[in-house]
């Protein structure tokens, strides 16, 4: 666990705070993806494979440029291509580098039941610690962006680490290194927001009136941000959610339901104990036995035959 090089501020399924006496040395970081500069060369995908030693299997051509067609445990970033016909009838090729958005309020971390399997560093990076992962897939249910993938090989969850190992030693993520057009930039979140503002201004001057920075506040902002020419319609970019937030179902399940549920179970057991102390056991007394014997005798006298059930031949149950 890289507790020494990167300060952990949040840890999945942990009630006590992580070590926090050291002031966070690292500022909040962000990767900025400028979709207006992306040419879809997939150099970032290759750099990601190289640095992280990932080799996805050779897939099948499904007739689109997306290759592989989806994120996998071996492909932590994928270029998604969408052909958009704009209102003036022209084709726009909207290419989006998909991958973990590194939410400030990560749904995966909230959903994860395994202590320390998902952590968030002081610089904002959300990282999976596979040695603690139990493979339940709750992170998949928790993620508003459909990013984590469970490996069929080891049943652990994987996703983009934002090259936390590189960032920890002052390097930029591998994908940034490889981008030939400068569509990918990395720095402090503050700097990236400022850089994005310049890009947005430039795009607006070129006729993209709705150009905007994508830093969704529903998840308290992300540490991977986009500059979009059509900032008002993020769905155009292969269904980038307009207002992503942790699903209310997940919030209910992983929020109040957990402590209240557990407390009520304990309360039920306690109620039983207190009832026992207050009312006491429900015992069968001698009087009940006598009453029962009396009742049996009466029955025998009425029916004028001795102990009917015992003289009845054995057979299957008496069920009516």
């Amino acid at each position: 666990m890289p507790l020494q090089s990167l300060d952990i501020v949040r840890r999945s399924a942990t009630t006590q705070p992580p070590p926090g006496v050291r002031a966070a040395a690292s500022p909040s970081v962000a990767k900025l993806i400028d979709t207006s500069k992306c040419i879809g060369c997939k150099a970032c995908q290759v750099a990601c494979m190289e640095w992280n030693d990932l080799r996805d299997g050779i897939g099948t051509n499904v007739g689109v440029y997306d290759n592989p067609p989806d994120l996998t445990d071996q492909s932590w970033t994928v270029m998604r291509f969408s052909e958009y016909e704009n209102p003036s009838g022209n084709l726009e090729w909207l290419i989006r580098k998909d991958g973990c958005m590194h939410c400030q309020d990560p749904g995966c971390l909230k959903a994860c039941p395994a202590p320390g399997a998902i952590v968030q560093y002081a610089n904002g990076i959300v990282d999976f610690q596979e040695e603690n992962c139990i493979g339940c897939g709750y992170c998949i249910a928790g993620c508003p962006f459909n990013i984590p993938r469970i490996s069929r090989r080891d049943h652990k969850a994987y996703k983009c680490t934002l090259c936390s190992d590189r960032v920890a030693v002052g390097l930029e993520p591998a994908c940034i290194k490889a981008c030939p057009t400068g569509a990918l930039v990395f720095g402090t979140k503050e700097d990236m927001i400022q850089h994005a503002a310049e890009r947005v201004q430039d795009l607006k001057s070129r006729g993209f009136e709705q150009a905007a920075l994508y830093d969704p506040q529903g998840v308290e902002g992300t540490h991977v941000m986009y500059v979009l020419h059509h900032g008002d319609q993020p769905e155009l970019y292969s269904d980038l959610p307009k207002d992503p937030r942790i699903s209310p179902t997940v919030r209910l399940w992983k929020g109040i339901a957990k402590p209240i549920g557990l407390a009520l179970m304990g309360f039920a057991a306690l109620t039983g104990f207190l009832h026992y102390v207050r009312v006491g056991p429900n015992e069968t007394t001698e009087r009940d036995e006598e009453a029962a014997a009396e009742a049996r005798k009466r029955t025998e006298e009425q029916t004028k035959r001795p102990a009917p059930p015992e003289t009845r031949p054995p057979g299957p149950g008496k069920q009516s």
Partner: protein
Amino acid sequence: MSTQAGRIETTRVGERPRDRVIDGAIVRYTAGERITHWIVALAFILAALSGLAMFHRAVFWFSVFFGGGPWTRVLHPFIGLFMVLAFVLLALLVQSDNRMSAADWRWLRQWRDVLGNREERLPEVGRYNGGQKLLFFVQILCLVGLLVSGIIFWRPYFAIYFSIPVIRIAALVHAICAFVLIIAVIVHIYAGIWVRGSVRAMTRGLVSPGWAWKHHRAWFREVTNGTSPRPGAH
């Protein structure tokens, strides 16, 4: 009397026909019913512990009983499935005695008398009382909910066939059903401790006539008469 009882007892080793008076005790559960019940109970405890480990961080340590987190995740669905199958068997054995009647609803409405040990004020109870029958149906509903929702997010086998929003709802339904079932079983266990003689009924299979007279009088009459006092009412 004892010779007659002995004759019945030797019909099959370890198995005595139920609802008979033998040696002054009433056979409430056959060996088969008892074993089925305890298999369900054991499976429930294992399923609940492994499930709770994944439900709340405070009890994640329950996973040590199953060989750690990943093993807990692997075993839990199989234990759950086994519990459901064993419960189906148990339910088939007891379902005919678990039909709700008007008297059962009256019994439930008088829950204050039930909890206050004032059984003399309650309507006569057959083989099972209203609370036991209610428990039976709550368990069925919860187990159906747990089975269906559990399969939906069972990795790696079935979750891949369902969309993420469906999986989210399934996880929530699973947690709610598990919660209700655990509470129901806590009540069930406490009732067994509270009503003396109940544990013996499920371990040895026997209850005293006085126990039957006090807690299940209609059933007592049925057993001692050899006839059903109110057909279909128990």
